[in-house]
């Protein structure tokens, strides 16, 4: 575990250096995404004094944190139980909440959607295919290749036409 931490520590120095707040040309991180930002960048204009106050405040809070850590773990003057709350060791219970959701209701909802896709949406597509097949299997009975069947069809059609014609002309 030591080695990855050393790597991360070194990289954190890089992280600080790619966005030095002294001039526009040292803010590499800020300009990195410019081609993707277009005119959507919104600049927050702060006066120099505000910037200094914020910087000093940030450094003070860092100092306080380090000092508190020093007193607690090095000098053991502060009881470490004040900081080591169970909810913190559980990382605000974030991980377990996600796991519980994805292991339970989340998973079921996902599974239901996948079933919906397979049964309903894909089912409708395959169903259309089945419907065509079934309709065809009935319709094809009329195409049996027997001359007499076709003759009956023609005869029925002729009679039908004749009836229709007579109905139209006489009434």
């Amino acid at each position, binding site marked *: 575990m030591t080695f990855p931490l050393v790597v991360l520590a070194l990289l954190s120095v890089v992280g600080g250096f790619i966005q030095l707040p002294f001039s526009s040309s040292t803010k590499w991180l800020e300009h990195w995404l410019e*081609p993707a930002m277009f005119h959507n960048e919104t600049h927050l204009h702060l006066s120099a004094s505000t910037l200094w106050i914020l910087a000093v405040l940030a450094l003070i809070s860092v100092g306080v944190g380090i000092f508190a850590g020093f007193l607690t773990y090095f000098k053991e003057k502060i009881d470490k139980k004040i900081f080591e709350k169970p909810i913190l060791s559980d990382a605000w219970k974030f991980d377990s909440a996600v796991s519980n959701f*994805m292991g339970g209701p989340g998973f079921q909802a996902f599974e239901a959607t996948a079933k919906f896709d397979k049964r309903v949406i894909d089912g409708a597509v395959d169903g259309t295919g089945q419907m065509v097949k079934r309709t065809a299997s009935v319709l094809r009975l009329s195409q049996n290749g027997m001359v007499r069947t076709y003759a009956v069809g023609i005869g029925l059609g002729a009679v039908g036409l004749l009836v229709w014609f007579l109905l139209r002309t006489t009434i």
Partner: protein
Amino acid sequence: MTFLIATVSSATFPVLPALLIVPTAGALVVALLPRARKDLTKLTALIFSTTTGALSLWLLSEFDSDSNSGMFQFVSRQSWISDFGISWSFGVDGISLFLIILTGILFPIAFLAVDPEHNERSYFAWMLLLEAGVMGVFCALDLILFFLCFEVVLVPMYFLISRWGHGNRAYAATKFFLFTMAGSALMLVGIITLAFLHANNLESSVTFDLVEIAESQTIAQGTARWLFLSFALAFAVKIPIFPLHTWLPDAHTEAPTAGSVILAGVLLKLGTYGLLRFGLYLFPEASHFFAPLFLTLGVVGIIYGAVVAAMQKDLKRLVAYSSIAHLGFIVLGTFALNTEAIEGSVLQMVNHGISTGALFLLVGMIYERRHTRQIDELGGLQHSAPLMAAVFTVVMLSSIGLPGLNGFVGEFLILLGTFNAHRWWAVVATVGVVLAALYLLWAYQRVFHGPVQKENAEVSDLKTRETLVLLPLLALIVFLGIYPKPVISRMENSVKALVVHIEEHVSEFEEPVNRYSKGEINAEGSEEGHG
């Protein structure tokens, strides 16, 4: 009436027809090779496809990104069926340029990566014909020529799936063919109606010229909306947009590896490209009118595709469903109708081609070694194939949209543009980014992490050839992630011209842009200009 074409003179060498003719000639040559010379098949196919790729790269170097304000370049036209005003006309602009290059690059890679198991000659002949068809779609400026190429693509793909595919290939191929045919049949009716109505309204002879019809906008509003739908349906099936997507998981899963790469990498873009060129450009008013519908379907596709992808047990099917989610982003960006979002969409078409192409290659390599794609039969592969695991990680992170890799830039532009136009659609779509991380990381974890079981322990790592094939894709993933400017700047003029075209032809429509950056904070937010 302005004729953009008239003002553009192009290089003397007809490079665009060549993009169509070289692979077609290649298909013929490969098909006619003597049966005894099996060794020549792949080499010939590679020569023709790399020539096409080289031509597309030459196009990139010659493309003029500054002047011409986004007009078509390299325009080449020959009268073809002059009685009906059908011409053999080609042109390229910033929108189609990178899709042509993507096609030019992906085909040789797909050829190099995988050898067919049998019938090499017909396999490579179909592949080259497929490339010709795709190139034709991206270059065509004539509606009939476009339709012809759009349809020609189906035939090689049908045979590639049905002859070289996996288990359920006959079902998948038929489903793919019928689905897409049904979609595009109406488009043919739409094309013919459009051309004849246009000629009627102008009392001129019939023409199928895209630029002429799009620039003059003579069709009545109601009719144009119906015609738009006839085009949009064909594209919606091709993309595919929810709920017309079910051909995709079957076709992708059953297709041979190279087929899946091309299907996801290039073929799906025929639909999204069609929406831009033959939707927004040809029918600006109708596109604006139907935008809410497509935005909603885009968002539904993003969430739905991701959720269903997460539940897949077959790794290839998972990647296939992820395409539905990714293409949902592209549809969303297209119908946000502003420059950022449309540029993001075009960029994302290229990005998706690269990253999903690479994912399908990797899944194919896993299948070749283990003869299974079932996620629960795999596991611990990073012990036996660490290099493959590393490459998979980068490609997967690109697909998720990690900043620094290509997928991020496209997705971010789409979300940014959509946010400026339709805030809530963008907010919901952002959930899709999280879901993409969920299904891909979870799949990675199950396939590559964990204890390595017996058969997975003997999996060999990437071979030299496989590494070489993946390397250009990896390079593009990183390059486009860090420095997308060369791509964006070349498409910018054309996308802006398209947005201006929409503004001109849609009354009371103004490009939805970010009002905050101008310092005016508008309480009504995104609703402005979309009443």
